[in-house]
């Protein structure tokens, strides 16, 4: 009886182990078969795209829009899974990606301006985001600055020499500081959780200005029905915004437009395995140019802006040079 019990339990334990392996290894088995048929060696298992924010937000929507299309264009049939790892303004999720094996199976959505700013603030520790492997851009949005309609500031010139509170989101620190410098204001950065919250604070008069991704901010100007006044576009003209809103260059401001260009890029850890890198760059490039992706983004209120290859590497490199240029302005942490 005892022996039978032990045998039974042993069989159960084996079954459980098999379940665990099955849960994790079914794709490997399938790929094992495929390998025999001289298919490409990579990928062999599911790819994870880390979204370093909570579910339901802009990054999440974009990741879920592109994931099935990346699956479609990869050389082998595997799943591309979106995993939300929020915390510390994208630091936790980004660090998880950075510390993962550079085998192409763990990627993350990043914004190089935010990476560079956080690094300049000392927030990344030993992780060097400049060494990430940047694979493909999903979109790039200019930043829109709004003030309270009928408030104490009516135009940019009024801000010279004045104390001004700028709403801070973590991703917009650089553009806040660059705009403050350009208009001659003395900035105080005030933390808010989201663009709708920050815009409401501006409309209420609790905050002097909010600068964030143009599409999202412009929606708030409609939502808040004339309580907000857009005064400046940083990062170039945005197709969805009226021409009456001028860019920094059009207004003659001494301000690098790139400080306000928010990019959403899929990146992997440093020294990504070359075969994986090539396959991912190809798949992401095709996915972001797929009409289905464009449609899904448009439906969600975003505009796809695919970019890859050397152009993307140059754009990212220029961002980090920009961070170096403004490094003295960026407040430092512990």
């Amino acid at each position: 009886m005892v022996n039978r019990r032990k045998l039974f339990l042993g069989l159960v334990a084996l079954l459980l182990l098999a379940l665990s392996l099955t849960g994790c290894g079914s794709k490997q088995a399938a790929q094992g078969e495929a390998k025999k048929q001289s298919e490409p060696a990579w990928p062999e298992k599911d790819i994870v795209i880390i979204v370093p924010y909570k579910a339901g937000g802009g990054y999440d929507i974009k990741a879920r829009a592109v994931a099935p299309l990346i699956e479609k264009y990869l050389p082998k049939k595997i799943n591309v899974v979106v995993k939300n790892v929020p915390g510390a303004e994208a630091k936790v999720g980004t660090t998880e990606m950075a510390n993962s094996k550079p085998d192409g199976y763990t990627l993350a959505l990043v914004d190089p301006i935010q990476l560079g700013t956080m690094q300049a603030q000392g927030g990344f520790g030993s992780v060097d985001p400049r060494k990430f492997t940047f694979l493909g851009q999903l979109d790039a949005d200019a930043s829109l600055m709004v003030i309270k309609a009928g408030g104490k500031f009516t135009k940019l010139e009024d801000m010279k020499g004045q104390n001004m509170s700028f709403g801070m989101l973590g991703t917009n620190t650089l553009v806040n500081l660059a705009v403050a410098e350009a208009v001659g204001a003395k900035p105080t950065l005030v933390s808010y959780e989201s663009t709708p919250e920050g815009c409401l604070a501006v409309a209420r008069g609790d905050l002097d200005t909010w600068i964030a991704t143009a599409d999202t901010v412009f929606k708030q100007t409609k939502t808040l029905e004339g309580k907000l006044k857009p005064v400046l576009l940083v990062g170039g003209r945005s197709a969805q915004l009226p021409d009456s809103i001028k860019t920094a260059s059009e207004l003659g401001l001494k301000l690098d437009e790139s400080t306000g260009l928010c990019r959403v890029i899929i990146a992997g850890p440093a020294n990504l395995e070359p075969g994986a890198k090539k396959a991912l760059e190809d798949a992401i490039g095709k996915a972001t140019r797929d009409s289905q992706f464009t449609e899904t983004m448009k439906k969600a209120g975003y505009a796809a802006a695919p970019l890859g290859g050397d152009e993307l590497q140059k754009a990212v490199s220029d961002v980090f040079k920009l961070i170096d240029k403004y490094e003295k302005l960026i407040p430092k942490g512990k």
Partner: protein
Amino acid sequence: MWLDGFVGALSSENIIWLFLGTFLGLIIGVLPALGANFGVALMLPFTFGLDPAAALIFLCAIHASTNYGDSIASILLNVPGGPGTVATCWDGYPMAQQGKAGQALGIATLSSFIGGAIAWLSLAALAKPIGELAMIIGAPEYFMLGLMALSLVSVASRGETAKGLIMACFGLILSTIGQDPVTGLAYRFTFGTLWLEAGIPIVVSTLGIFAISQIIILFEEGKIAGKALDVQDSVLSGFKEVLRRPLTLLRSGVVGWFLGILPALGVALAGITSYLVEKNYSPERENFGKGAPGGVVAAETGKGACVVGDLIPTFTLGIPGSVTGAILMGALIIHGIDPGPRFLLSGDLPYIVFAGLLLGQLSYLIMGPLACKLLARVIFFPIPLLAPIITVLCFLGAFTERNYTFDILLMVAIGIMSYGLGRIGYPVVCMVLGLILGPIVEINFSRSLAIDYGSYAIFLHRPIALTLLTITLLFLAWPYFKDRLGFLKNAGEAATCGSDTSNKKHRPGEIATLLAIGALMALFAWEARDFNQAARIFPLVVIIITFMLIVPRLIYLIVLARQNTKPGAAAESGRESRPLVPWTVTVTFFLIYVALVYILGFILASSLFVVASAYYAGYRKWLILAFLGVCMGIFTLIFADALSIILPRGVILELLLP
């Protein structure tokens, strides 16, 4: 347009999605630890291909029924189904212990519905004016609201004031762990741990405080505590109890609704605040905590009103009132509706959404009581089987919040701490208040100062903030002025810091705990010297206040201890009955389970934990145990696969299958 909305919502296809959403939501809600955020977020991707009306009705039904379903676990098992039903446990479970589980469930059903209906009516009738209200409530008002909510500590800890305040301060200091919300530059009290930089989330802390500590008690007691909890009494009797308390419905509904329409305050706060406010005013307040129906009515009405109230800023301003609201807002945008003042101008669809919200409430009102009878069968499970299963669900819930394995460890650590604090008579609800309100108070204080560029005079220029402050002070002071004799008595009790409440048996434990808290505060104060000034102020203020509370209490306890050193004086009440599983063993099992998750992966660790802990707790039917272990493995596997969650694989599997 309204009629078109209801007609559209009641089409045959949408009705199917309504009931499917309700059914799924009830199951998710009943599972302890998996709340509405989880349910809505994970069902969202399944709706991308659906017709917009069907998709939104489905999500609204899940939103409504998960929030309702959370109450079932709270009442039957004393384990909160979600953060919004923490307060439901306090009287719901005692009612169940008294053989009134059906009544409690009926109360939860109808109260939750009425709260939701109150908020729905306000949404439908007053969306625009309520939206305007959000325009005038800013950072100074939020700060004062936070202080007002903190003042409820005095109600939560009545008779245990000093202990309650210490717990509130402890919760406040725990809430400061992580990236500072003021500058974002300081990572406070993380001691190099990356995952602590993201702070302690409410779901993980409430799971630890109320679920894990309750599981330890379940293992100790070894049976569903009290009498048989068969749901034989009528759910309808609960409906009658609700209808007998119109004032409670009104008070709690207003509190929950108000907290719901202000973004970011959260359903956990609504349930607890409604309960505590009602405890202050209810004629049956003496029975609160012992199975008072009014307590369940208050908690559930407040929660129900907040759940729907949260959607008001979401729809009218495009500002999500909660995480679930944010997800629903994302769903609206994906399906072509722009939240905001123009919400109602987007054709029929917004009216269908409104109708779907109300129908979601109605559908759980109908299906809920039926589900209660069915789902309540869970209480017949032997504790040695039930407690491990609930533990696995808690571990799943903690992990899925942020996909951190570390959160599981955090939850267990908080749970062990809460169990210990509860044993020595410290009101952990005050710690929860501190945890929830700390960030609200700190960030809104900082934002308030920024309005006038650092001037404290801002609070004098905001009439609503001043009014809230006045109400808070009156609320705190009123009990002392209510009756002159009562004033003298109460003042005496307050001055002696609850001298009657120090239990001799727990005194050494209390002294040790206070010393540990003091040491932790000292360590935090030392750490804080490196933070920038803005990040340092709030924690230091809390630390100073904590020391001002701990030191007199310690002195008092030590003096008392010396007075009671006469021979025989230490003889206390008789020995407690032998626990089924001592708390030390349960804690050891939890810690081994956490370690196994890291080593063997979640699925295997869960199966082994369930089998081992059930066996240790005395369940010896090998076939059932083995079957349960396998089922638990299959369940977690299906769960993860179906909902695209990547569970931890464990170091060994990573090595075997890189």
